[in-house]
């Protein structure tokens, strides 16, 4: 049975922890709003990009001049996985969910006799995947120093991927990230970015899809400029969704922690009060029985 003093210390320490988790929750809430705004602000660009891409592939008509980034190498022997996770922990199952999805994927690929290469974006995913697949990790992109996620960050990652592709480093590239559904639900997602696949013609309805375009320079040239840019945009979107998801997950994790700390304080206070009362009663009994003995 812990002494009264022990209990008092315990309550004080839980209270301190509760204050910290409460503060972290509020910080996460503020950051979440900003991350969500950033994700929303980036949406028009990727939407238009998709429309333009659909348009131009239609113009080319799936001819032989589509660049390799779009059609792939025709093989699927070497897979590159870009696993995007958060830089910091304390956000519930957020990072482990993404890592688990990636790990299942890797296991399946390895079982099929494929070769796997990994690029980790974010420290947490790296820490988890390093345990099992350290030999497969090519590189780790560190975004810890980055205050606000910019397009340049995504562009740098995409450039690395494209360079590796041009050197014949892999055949298929898949991006792992967490889709931001709402504050309480983030869905780990795998998205294939190379080969990009020909976007469906569904986007043609946007603005005069059947208009006859003039291209400056040639469509093929525009396309070869567009595809790498589109990959950057995909990575950028993944990073932004991840940032929003991380904050959402952190917020709910810290909310839970704060509530748990509250419960714990209640329980400890009850034990403390009971014990104090027991001690008082004991002392009274001692005094009374002492007086009666006289």
């Amino acid at each position, binding site marked *: 049975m812990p002494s009264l003093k022990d209990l008092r210390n315990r309550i004080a320490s839980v209270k301190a922890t509760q204050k910290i988790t409460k503060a972290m929750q509020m910080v996460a809430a503020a950051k979440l709003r900003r991350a969500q705004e950033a994700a929303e602000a980036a949406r028009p660009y990727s939407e238009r990009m998709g429309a333009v891409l659909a348009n131009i592939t239609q113009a080319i008509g799936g001819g032989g001049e589509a660049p390799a980034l779009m059609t792939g190498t025709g093989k699927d022997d070497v897979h590159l996985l870009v696993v995007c996770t958060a830089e910091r922990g304390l956000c519930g199952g957020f990072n482990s969910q993404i890592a688990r999805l990636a790990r299942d994927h890797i296991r399946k690929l390895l079982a099929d006799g494929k070769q796997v290469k990994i690029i980790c974006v974010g420290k947490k995913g790296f820490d988890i995947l390093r345990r099992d697949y350290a030999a497969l990790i090519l590189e780790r992109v560190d975004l810890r120093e980055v205050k606000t996620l910019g397009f340049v960050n995504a562009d740098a990652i995409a450039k690395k991927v494209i360079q590796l592709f041009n050197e014949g480093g892999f055949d298929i590239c898949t991006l792992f990230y967490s889709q931001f559904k709402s504050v309480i639900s983030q869905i780990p997602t795998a998205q294939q970015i190379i080969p990009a696949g020909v976007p469906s013609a569904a986007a043609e309805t946007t603005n005069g899809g059947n208009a006859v375009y003039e291209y400056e*320079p040639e469509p093929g040239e525009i396309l070869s400029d567009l595809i790498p840019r589109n990959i950057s945009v995909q990575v950028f979107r993944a990073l932004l969704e991840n940032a929003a998801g991380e904050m959402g997950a952190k917020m709910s994790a810290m909310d839970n922690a704060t509530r748990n700390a509250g419960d714990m304080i209640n329980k400890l206070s009850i034990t403390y009060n009971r014990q104090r009362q027991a001690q008082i009663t004991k002392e009274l009994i001692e005094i009374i029985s002492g007086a009666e003995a006289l």
Partner: protein
Amino acid sequence: MPEAFQFELVSPERLLVSEQVEAVVIPGAEGEMTVMAHHAPVMTTIKPGVVTVKTAEGRAERYVVFGGFADIVPAGCTLLAESAVAVGDIDRADLARRIQEAREDVADAKDDETRSKAEQFLSQLTTLEGAILPA
């Protein structure tokens, strides 16, 4: 008074402009072009340069863009820029850094084709710098 049309300037980070304008001057890959209402559908890549927008209210606004492409249809014009800022907000240090990087690219180029591309990009950047810095 010329007819107005919808113009949008979008960068990956945000939507910069979305309004009715009279004319837009775009630094196309094969020369500058002015877009007005009912322009024939054109799709073009753009080089680093200044986009001049004349709004329906008669204001003239200038934006610096670093590459991207433009999608022009009779109903409007969408400019997807890799990065875009209003001329007033341009960060000199950032521009200097880009020029420095372009110089390094020229120096690092392994074959003639990439070198000529890098040199072209560098000259576009320096022209741009000359155009926006008050001499």
